[in-house]
């Protein structure tokens, strides 16, 4: 290193010149920094490094948020909750907060959100919250309100997640077992974003399931009102099919749910006309003793012409039947009902079922099976088997008298339980392709008898596919990995010794060694 050079002498003018140059450089740097940050807030990327890609939204959600980000109108989500002493909401709210922040980010601030404790709103209570946030809908203490302009939709916060109360987390709070927030938020935003609802025309006059049935075993009232109408935003409309005159113009998807009386030829030709124009049809069928003496020859013939031949049998699949607690005397005993079972296999390619994971549970109760004849499908249309029962299941033809497989009488599994047909029909007069889904059960989807087995996803995904809303079909609720850790006494000591004592001890030892070495040198 050379000796210091004598410092040059600076005059006031020179100093002023240098100071001005530095000031100018500083201004330029400030300008670059502000510009870089401004641009970065508009054009940015986020990388999700979490092991289970917790924050990565589905393609459908991204597509919707992309559309929303170009809209003029803003969306507002206000989630209200009533705090409790157990901190029951803690993990669920944290997850909800993270999710909503992703929506805000992805929509470029078009979706704003807030999570509000009702107790903290001035004056307290739901009414004060309603007033403060200018909410017109009736809300409860744990409701989430979605707003777009004057339009509002309300969803209960508890629908966002599953909790387990018998396996407590920290401070006695229940553990978060599943999170369905993305599915709910996306479908609700989708409903708000559409100016005209999609009309589901439910046929009447053939003892179909009633869309206002709130008590029966199928409970399609709750299903169609709560899920299809309120949450998914479809317009559920009971209709009468006039003979030979087609289906009412406003109907986007025709639904024939669990008919028990046959259609006449005029009605069949109306349905056929609707399909020839690129119409969409969902059929759910039932089987079992109540259907034994109620054949539907015209309707089955119509389906047969599509390559789908419903069979007069009931599917039993004991291997896939869940055990249910049945009262026996004073107590309960686990028992299986062979006619209530989970679908064993799904088609992994078709849009309706592609996103069901290997553990997906969709219950069927008293299911009807079909024989699929691809060569009988109308020209230009592709027939796909969507779901089937297990290979040990069978189609029982003498139910309920016999419930054992009889090779000479019954149909061996696997049997088709749901099928989809799509394509442009020969001679079609519509611009769109025709789509049909047939499901061999009406009861299991809405299930009023065993709500714990209720599994509407097959019907719901079918409706979305039929309504050309494939992007709303998404993966099942994410199940957060259980990372809870309750330390044993040994583990506690292990953590304390390694983390609290060892590391600082090593730093001291290293320092001492260095000090001694230097001193010795």
């Amino acid at each position, binding site marked *: 290193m050379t000796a*210091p050079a004598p410092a040059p002498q600076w005059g006031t003018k*020179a100093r002023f010149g240098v100071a001005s140059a530095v000031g100018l450089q*500083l201004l330029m740097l400030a300008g670059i920094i502000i510009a*870089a940050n401004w641009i970065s807030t508009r054009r940015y990327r986020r990388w999700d490094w979490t092991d289970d890609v917790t924050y990565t939204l589905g393609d459908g959600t991204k597509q919707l948020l992309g559309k929303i980000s170009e809209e003029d109108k803003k969306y507002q989500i206000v989630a209200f909750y009533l705090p409790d002493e157990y901190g029951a909401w803690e993990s669920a709210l944290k997850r909800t907060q993270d999710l909503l922040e992703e929506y805000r980010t992805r929509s470029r601030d078009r979706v704003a959100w807030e999570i509000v404790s009702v107790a903290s709103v001035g004056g307290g209570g739901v009414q004060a919250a309603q007033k403060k946030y200018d909410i017109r809908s009736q809300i409860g203490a744990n409701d989430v309100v979605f707003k777009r302009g004057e339009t509002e939709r309300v969803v209960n916060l508890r629908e966002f997640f599953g909790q387990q109360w018998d396996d407590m987390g920290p401070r006695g709070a229940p553990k978060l077992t599943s999170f369905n927030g993305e599915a709910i938020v996306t479908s609700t935003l989708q409903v708000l974003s559409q100016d005209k609802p999609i009309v589901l025309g439910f046929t009447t006059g053939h003892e179909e399931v009633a869309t206002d049935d709130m008590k029966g075993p199928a409970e399609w009232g709750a299903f169609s009102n709560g899920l299809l109408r309120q949450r998914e935003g479809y317009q559920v409309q009971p209709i009468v099919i006039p003979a030979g005159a087609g289906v009412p113009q406003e109907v986007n998807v025709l639904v024939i749910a669990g008919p028990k009386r046959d259609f006449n030829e005029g009605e069949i030709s109306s349905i056929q006309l609707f399909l020839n124009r690129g119409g969409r049809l969902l059929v759910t069928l039932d089987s079992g003793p109540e259907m034994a003496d109620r054949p539907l020859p015209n309707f089955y013939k119509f389906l047969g012409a599509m390559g789908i031949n419903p069979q007069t049998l009931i599917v039993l699949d004991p291997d896939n039947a869940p055990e249910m607690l049945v009262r026996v005397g004073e107590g309960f005993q686990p028992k299986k009902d062979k006619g209530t079972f989970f679908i064993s296999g799904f088609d992994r390619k078709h849009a309706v079922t592609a996103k069901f994971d290997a553990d997906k549970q969709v219950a069927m109760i008293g299911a009807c099976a079909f024989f699929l004849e691809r060569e009988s499908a109308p020209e230009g249309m592709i027939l796909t088997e969507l779901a089937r029962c297990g290979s040990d299941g069978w189609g029982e033809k003498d139910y309920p008298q016999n419930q054992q497989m009889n090779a000479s009488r019954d149909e061996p599994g696997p049997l088709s339980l749901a099928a989809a047909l799509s394509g442009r029909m020969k001679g079609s007069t519509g611009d769109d392709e025709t789509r049909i889904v047939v499901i061999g059960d009406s009861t299991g989807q809405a299930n009023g008898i065993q709500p714990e087995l209720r599994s509407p996803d097959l019907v719901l995904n079918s409706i979305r596919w039929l309504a050309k809303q494939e992007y709303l079909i998404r993966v099942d609720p994410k199940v957060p*990995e259980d990372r809870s850790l*309750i330390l044993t006494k040994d583990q506690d000591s292990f953590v304390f010794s390694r983390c609290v004592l060892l*590391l*600082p001890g090593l730093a001291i030892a290293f320092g001492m060694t260095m000090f001694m070495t230097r001193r010795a040198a």
Partner: protein
Amino acid sequence: MAGRRGDLVTNLPALTKREFTANFYSPMAYVIATFYLLFAGLSFYILLRDQRDANAMRSLLTFLGFIHTIFIPMVTMRLISEERKSGTLEMLVTAPVSDTEIAISKFLGATLFTALMIAPTTLFTWVLTRINGRPDIGMIQASYVGLMLLSMSYIALGLFISSLTANQIVAAILTFVTLFTFYFLVGFLTGSAESLPFHEKIPWPDILNYMHFGAHLQSFGKGLVDSRDVVYFASVISLGIFLTIKSLESRRWR
């Protein structure tokens, strides 16, 4: 005499090495590292016991962001102040190295020392796996990236403040006050804005929130690497280093 631009590559590694190794000659570095590791270890232990969750690392790394507002000033306080006080700075600025090299090497030396100070905390992840915990490794990695970027921003600001005074204590206090303001005070004003009686008078809450260090650490803590946060930290680092260079240059014409 300032070094030529082409010498930057040749001089920088040697200068950085000098700055980095200088830390180990001072007992202060070991005191800082010992207390830092004690704080980190104790915090991790308490968080793990309280949260009963392998993701306690997430909370720890976010907490360390705050703890660094105390420890980084101790690392940066001596960087230039000490050299100025002892007169070695005069020798350094007249050596054939540029002010840019001096500033960058001091920044890199302190960054390496901080990284070395943080590195032992990765042992906590190993401890978690040893006791059958299932920590989210991706989330932890992102948190470390965030913590390093935050620390580098702190170092850049601390370096600049250290260049303003010959008194190490003044440098440490000023750095702490600056970091505390950007980490805690701004966060408090924006985060609790609605509950404050004067919340309507807080100017430009969005800009204020954007300047909040903690807000930019949050995404990393969740396992998300966001280009906006990276740009923000890069901006603070560039600004700190640029101001340091200008502060060093100013000795020639002030």
